[in-house]
């Protein structure tokens, strides 16, 4: 059974791909829920195949296997091959599992959209692309998936492309990601130049002998650039908040739970290369810490329910980068997993709220919704507590492990630990603020709004994710390091950072981080449970800092002035002072030349056959004379 599942592993990718293709051609003609049900079934089956295939790893006797599907360019190691090891298995289960729940949710959420079928085409295509990325057995295939998820992200952000803001956001995401992809391409060139192959098998085992520290650092930093683009880290995070223009299930699936974690996966997968370059590791961790703090501060002052979650996602991704940068790979992947649960839950909950409020996203116009939509409120509350790091929810265990690992590593990482704690407090603050603003206090919605609990199709995934959020953390606790042992074979050859040993240290670490979380939680709770006038006054009291946070430090304006406008100017200059006079001039000049010559020689074409004959004879005689003169 299990062997069969591994042999049929390609089905994991093929099922959603086939779903996308099928729906592409017939989806528009299906009655509404059918397209969504089919898409959900495809990804659900994909999950089951992955689950059965992962069984040996659960039992602890599985071996990493490479499944060659098709030899494409064996000479450079670019084949269609799948690497099935605990890491890719875990990623597969996260993508398909969370993806399945979000698909189901989307059936309810997208109800009534005229391009309902098209939405599930893109969603399924995304799942297939993301699975290609995580199951790839070489960097070429990983890059294929990497670009495909970027494409799907573009398509789905711009799903409601008739809105200017959505089209612009899609374009922005695509262009910013291009910068990261540039780093990816150069990194892959370096890898190929050093190893002569792109296959994982030929790279990781030999990394120590082949790479010098300098090359490893270069590759690592370029990978970081790529990851910063895809995973929205400083300085390339600006696309993610705008990506909230997409439908909320998309935000949940792509821009919170799965695609944006690709950068974390990339760093973890390339651990053998980062192993050789402490510089690259420190840079990854520092970028992560900076992003975590930066984004958390912005999230505090947002009023758009999805914007808060977007900045929160950036911040949490920064957490994961801190972990993998500090070589605490298991902690990073662990947080990736728990974050997928509770952030998907938060986004879906936000979607449910938006749905209930008839597409209202401003939290200042909500409030007191708990009684109207109890399921959404309670599940989102659980997720809020989880992300705030309240034990024993999932977020507590994973966040605590990251912080502990940072502390144990010491030195500069100790500074990052402090940053992490600060971020944890801020995270607790803004998440509590959000929950209280939406579900507590006096209702502030207008009279035409009739908030109501969402249908079962939407609340069931919420409940499932809430359950995962509650129990998900127990896979890796100091009492039982299940995930640690599960992932150990993947990181066999590299050194790994662990949290400090001993129950005393654990209690100390947990105490500090829980305290930080509770401080944020309590502060927000106290501030925002009061009427709006009071907390508006409190926010005004924080000016001008609050204004900076609210406007996201005006980074977009900064980029606009420093990058976008000069770029547009350069393009304009190229278009109007180079292209128009020089290139077009040359082309038109050639045309004018030909026309001028034609104008002059057209008199030769009299249309008289006998004229032509005379010219023919003249030519022939000239030839004969020439031959006679040259003596041939």
């Amino acid at each position, binding site marked *: 059974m299990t062997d069969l599942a591994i042999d049929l592993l390609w089905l994991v990718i093929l099922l959603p791909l086939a779903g996308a293709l099928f729906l592409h051609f017939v989806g528009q003609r299906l009655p509404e829920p059918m397209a969504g049900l089919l898409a959900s079934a495809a990804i659900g089956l994909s999950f089951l195949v992955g689950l059965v295939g992962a069984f040996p790893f659960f039992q602890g006797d599985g071996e990493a296997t490479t499944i060659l599907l098709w030899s494409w360019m064996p000479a450079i190691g670019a084949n269609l091959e799948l690497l099935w090891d605990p890491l890719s298995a875990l990623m597969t289960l996260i993508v398909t599992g969370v993806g399945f729940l979000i698909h189901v949710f989307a059936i309810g959420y997208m109800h009534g959209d005229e391009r309902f079928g098209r939405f599930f085409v893109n969603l399924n295509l995304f799942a297939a692309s993301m699975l290609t990325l995580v199951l790839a057995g070489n960097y070429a295939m990983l890059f294929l998936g990497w670009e495909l998820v970027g494409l799907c992200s573009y398509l789905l952000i711009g799903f409601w492309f008739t809105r200017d803001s959505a089209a612009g956001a899609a374009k922005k995401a695509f262009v910013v990601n291009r910068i990261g992809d540039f780093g990816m391409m150069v990194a892959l060139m370096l890898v190929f130049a050093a190893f002569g192959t792109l296959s994982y098998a030929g790279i990781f085992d030999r990394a120590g002998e082949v790479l010098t520290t300098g090359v490893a650092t270069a590759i690592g930093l370029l990978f970081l650039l790529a990851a910063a683009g895809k995973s929205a880290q400083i300085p390339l995070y600006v696309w993610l908040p705008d990506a909230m223009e997409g439908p909320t299930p998309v935000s949940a699936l792509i821009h919170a739970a799965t695609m944006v974690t690709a950068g974390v996966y990339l760093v973890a997968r390339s651990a053998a290369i980062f192993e050789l370059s402490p510089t690259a590791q420190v840079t990854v961790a520092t970028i992560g810490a900076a992003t975590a703090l930066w984004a958390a501060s912005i999230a505090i002052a947002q009023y758009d329910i999805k914007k808060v979650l977007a900045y929160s996602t950036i911040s949490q991704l920064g957490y994961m980068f801190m972990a993998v940068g500090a070589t605490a790979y298991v902690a990073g992947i662990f947080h990736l997993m728990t974050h997928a649960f509770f952030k998907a839950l938060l986004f879906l909950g936000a979607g449910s709220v938006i749905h209930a409020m008839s597409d209202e996203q401003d939290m200042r116009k909500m409030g007191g919704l708990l009684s109207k939509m109890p399921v959404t409120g309670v599940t989102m509350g659980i997720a809020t507590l989880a992300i705030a790091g309240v034990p024993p929810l999932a977020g507590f265990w994973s966040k605590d492990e990251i912080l502990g690992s940072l502390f144990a590593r010491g030195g500069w990482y100790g500074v990052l630990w402090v940053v992490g704690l600060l971020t944890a407090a801020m995270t607790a603050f803004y998440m509590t603020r959000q929950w209280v603003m939406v579900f507590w206090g006096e209702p502030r919605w207008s009279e035409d709004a009739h908030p109501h609990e969402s249908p079962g199709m939407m609340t069931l995934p919420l409940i499932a994710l809430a359950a995962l959020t509650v129990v998900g953390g127990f896979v890796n606790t100091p009492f039982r390091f299940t995930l640690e042992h599960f992932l150990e074979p993947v990181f066999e050859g590299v050194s790994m950072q662990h949290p400090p040993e001993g129950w005393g240290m654990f209690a100390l670490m947990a105490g500090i981080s829980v305290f930080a979380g509770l401080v944020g939680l309590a502060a927000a709770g106290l501030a925002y449970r009061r009427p709006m006038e009071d907390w508006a006054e409190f926010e005004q009291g924080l000016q001008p800092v609050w204004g900076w946070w609210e406007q996201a430090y005006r980074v977009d304006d900064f980029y606009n002035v420093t990058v976008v406008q000069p770029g547009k100017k350069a393009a304009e200059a190229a278009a109007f002072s180079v292209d128009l006079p020089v290139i077009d001039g040359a082309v038109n000049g050639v045309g004018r030349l030909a026309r001028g010559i034609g104008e002059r020689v057209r008199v030769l074409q009299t249309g008289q056959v006998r*004229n032509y004959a*005379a010219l023919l004879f*003249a030519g022939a005689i000239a030839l004969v004379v020439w031959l006679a003169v040259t003596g041939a």
Partner: protein
Amino acid sequence: MVEAVLFVLMAVAALTGAVTVVLARNPIYSAIGLLGTLFSVAVIYVVHLAHLVAAVQVIVYAGAVLTLFLFVIMLIGVDKSERRIETLPSQRIGVGAIAILLIAGVVAITVFGNFEWVPAAASVIDLDATNGTVAAVAEPMFTDWVLAFEATALLLTIGAAGAVALAHYRRRN
């Protein structure tokens, strides 16, 4: 001596026929003039021991081709409207110049035409010994030139098909 007499007679006949082709106002006379030239040239071929070529000249050219010409002349009517005076001004100058040059060439060949004939060693045979048999022509044609032979066969087929396609008369409606 016989050859000299034949040459003079045939040369005069051929040139007379050629001039007739050009000068006759009635195309039928032109065709008759061409016939005379073709026959005269055929006689010269026989003198040169080119019996097969001579036979083909008479049968295909004088027989088939010329008959075709006459058919077409009859089909489209004898057009006598053509005037002797040149109507294209530019053509007059051109024809004058070319005529002078061509006449100069003819004179040059007549005066300096006693070339030294140097045979190419590879393809020399004793032409007199063949006595003008068909076998002498057939042998190189079906060995060295067999590809050209097949190509011309194909050309004839295409030509025939093309002629049918061109001249086929489609009745309107």
